């Protein structure tokens, strides 16, 4: 039903009509009319962050743990520019976000007005789409369209920039939550002949592998269920990208662990030697493929992706299928069940035997230590002591992130929130805020590094304000560990600027924020401290002092192939070529 209202009212109305209940934001001059409406209603809850980057990461955590669109509200100029890192993060990881930014009034646009920036210009390359709404009559439609674009096809962030005069202006609001877009209509159903061809290829494989990614998570819970069905009926081994952990349970029989730069030996060797590869909801990222010309050289490659531009971008594939993971998986499972021919049992047994051989390397193994906490051990204990709870994990970026991916075993989708594509240090803490907001009774843990977490530490204040009992579990080694690891491996062990001097006392810091601090530096004390941390119904910073020089293995050094992994410090690395060093 259409009715007259101000632009600011329309923003609230459209959000409510979209089913939004929580938004993350920070007020400022150019969004005051919207904030004024916000405090006169009760349908929307606003979480006041301490920095706009935190607002976007919190919305990302919210979106990823619920499957809903995350909503952000920030002001013009610095409000918008501070949001850019979060928006880019959401674009790289395909997270649905609608970010509403205030703008100076239309007659001042282009005048270098106070807190003016070219928001649509700046955010064009870091959003899926963006809008500058100059006429209040367009506002309702644009807001609904923004939700449609953010959540349909490959999800991503959408910015709606609203000048202040448009927020004050009165216009007609048409409630149209369902959009039939005139141009943007992503393909959902996969091409049937291609799917049949893919199933045939899979069925005739002697060394098959299923490699799944974040697309499964984005596609929704049914995609994870169907993926599990497919793995069960085929009996094929499965690995996943960092983004896709939890889609197939880590306790599942066919699970090989994560693949890629810090993936398991067995997963990477199987990727290298396979003869048929089903890549579903993943994008052959450079962290996955290693050296491209040596990537799965003998494999017939099937690629399922909702985004046509992901196909044949890095790796040429033999059977491309454009469509939504759940829809394509449903077809695959149906076609597989309907066919009579069975896969080559003997070959499959030999393949599993080979995988078992590789597994014997125990590539995630590490040297136990009774005096110093090994970071891997800390994650293992954290997993063991929380696995029976309703637990959600976020991370920052670096060694701790990879150790978490390797040693925390995810059984369900939407439980693992990490910055994969952009690799944003400082992601985990605000993401945890968003996750806890969406799941008030769950145990939300940010597995952090001491360097990363300081980038967005101010959001502790948000957690305290809203009584969000997030647990910041810091693997503190006083280094930017991953930077140091690369310097050791690739830059002649010259440790340049990666040592963190003058770190704060994290226990006192927690207390200063009104949270609770823990410090543990003996392996024997770890379990009790973790149990105690879980019981605290307040935000916690847990300073877990770990081995300072532990490195993250296994590792495919840059410019190397899957079968050229380093398994540990002891193994002499072949010199990395100059071409390899150039890679990040």
């Amino acid at each position: 039903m259409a009715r007259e209202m101000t632009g600011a009212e329309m923003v609230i109305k459209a959000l409510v009509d979209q089913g939004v209940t929580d938004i993350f934001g920070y007020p400022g001059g150019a969004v005051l009319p919207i904030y004024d409406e916000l405090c006169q209603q009760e349908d929307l809850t606003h979480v006041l962050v301490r920095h706009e980057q935190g607002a976007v990461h919190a919305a990302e955590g919210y979106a990823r743990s619920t499957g809903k669109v995350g909503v952000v509200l920030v002001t013009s100029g610095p409000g918008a520019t501070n949001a850019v890192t979060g928006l880019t993060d959401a674009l790289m990881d395909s997270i649905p976000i609608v970010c509403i930014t205030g703008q100076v009034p239309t007659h001042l646009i282009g005048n270098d007005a106070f807190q003016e920036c070219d928001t649509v210009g700046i955010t064009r390359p870091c959003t899926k789409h963006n809008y500058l709404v100059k006429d209040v009559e367009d506002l309702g439609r644009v807001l609904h369209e923004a939700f449609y674009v953010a959540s349909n096809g490959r999800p991503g962030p959408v910015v709606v920039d609203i000048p202040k005069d448009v927020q004050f202006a009165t216009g007609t609001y048409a409630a149209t939550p369902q959009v039939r877009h005139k141009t943007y209509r992503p393909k959902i159903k996969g091409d049937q002949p291609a799917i049949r061809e893919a199933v045939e290829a899979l069925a005739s494989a002697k060394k098959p592998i299923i490699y799944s990614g974040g697309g499964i998570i984005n596609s929704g819970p049914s995609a994870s269920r169907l993926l599990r069905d497919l793995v069960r009926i085929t009996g094929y081994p499965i690995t996943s990208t960092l983004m896709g952990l939890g889609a197939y349970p880590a306790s599942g029989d066919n699970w090989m662990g994560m693949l890629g730069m810090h993936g398991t030996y067995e997963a990477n060797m199987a990727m290298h030697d396979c003869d048929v590869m089903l890549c579903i909801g993943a994008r052959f990222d450079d962290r996955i493929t290693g050296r491209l010309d040596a990537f799965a050289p003998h494999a017939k490659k099937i690629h399922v992706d909702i985004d046509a531009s992901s196909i044949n971008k890095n790796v040429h594939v033999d059977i491309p299928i454009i469509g939504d993971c759940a829809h394509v998986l449903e077809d695959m499972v149906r076609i597989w069940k309907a066919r009579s021919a069975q896969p080559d049992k003997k070959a499959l047994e030999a393949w599993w035997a080979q995988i078992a051989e590789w597994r014997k390397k125990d590539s995630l193994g590490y040297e136990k230590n009774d005096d110093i906490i090994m970071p891997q051990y800390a994650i293992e204990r954290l997993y063991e002591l929380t696995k029976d709870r309703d637990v959600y994990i976020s991370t920052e970026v670096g060694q701790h992130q990879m150790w978490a991916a390797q040693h925390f075993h995810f059984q369900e989708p939407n439980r693992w929130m990490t910055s994969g594509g952009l690799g944003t240090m400082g992601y985990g803490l605000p993401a945890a805020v968003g996750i806890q907001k969406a799941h008030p009774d769950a145990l939300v843990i940010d597995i952090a590094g001491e360097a990363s977490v300081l980038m967005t530490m101010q959001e502790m204040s948000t957690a305290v304000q809203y009584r969000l009992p997030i647990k910041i579990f810091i693997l503190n080694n006083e280094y930017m560990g991953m930077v140091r690891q690369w310097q050791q491996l690739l830059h002649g062990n010259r440790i340049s600027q990666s040592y963190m001097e003058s770190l704060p006392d994290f226990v006192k810091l927690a207390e200063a924020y009104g949270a609770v601090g823990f410090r543990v530096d003996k392996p024997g004390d770890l379990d009790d401290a973790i149990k105690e941390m879980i019981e605290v119904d307040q935000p916690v910073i847990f300073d877990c002092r770990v081995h300072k020089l532990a490195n993250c293995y296994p590792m495919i050094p840059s410019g190397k192939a899957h079968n050229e992994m380093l398994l540990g410090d002891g193994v002499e690395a072949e010199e990395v070529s100059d071409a390899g060093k150039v890679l990040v």
Partner: protein
Amino acid sequence: MKPEISESHTISVLVDNEPGVLARVIGLFSGRGYNIDSLTVTETEHEAHLSRITVVTAGTPMVIEQIKAQLERLVPVHSVMDLTVSGPSIERELALIKVEGKGEKRVEALRLADAFRARVIDATTESFVFEVTGRTNKIDQFISLMKPLGLSEVARTGVAAISRGVGGLSSDS
């Protein structure tokens, strides 16, 4: 890896004529490191607010496929057509070419203009402006011939292209 050869493609893109749409297309090319050899944009369907962008680009077949897929996923893009592979097509460019000089060179310039079916659209005692249309290489050739004859300024439109025969780029796809 197989060495892949760079090839030139002419791509037509039908877009909503809205602010920023050209920036999206250009930003995509610069942000992802694709080439733009020629770019032509103007509104072609006023009622429907549609503009047609003709872009001549070069890249390996994999890059060309990427360019098309990347263009297609832009929200205001209606349809994308690779005229180089979709069947026979026609390409034309228009150039305005100023030549300054006196005496013999002036006469020679006029004679060559005639051979290229270039029209004189402005003349003074010391200059001509020629208008010439045709394929890009024809215009390139005409310009190179004018160089020794007093070429002083060139304005070119870039390539406009359309498929031959029935059917073509439409907004409903």
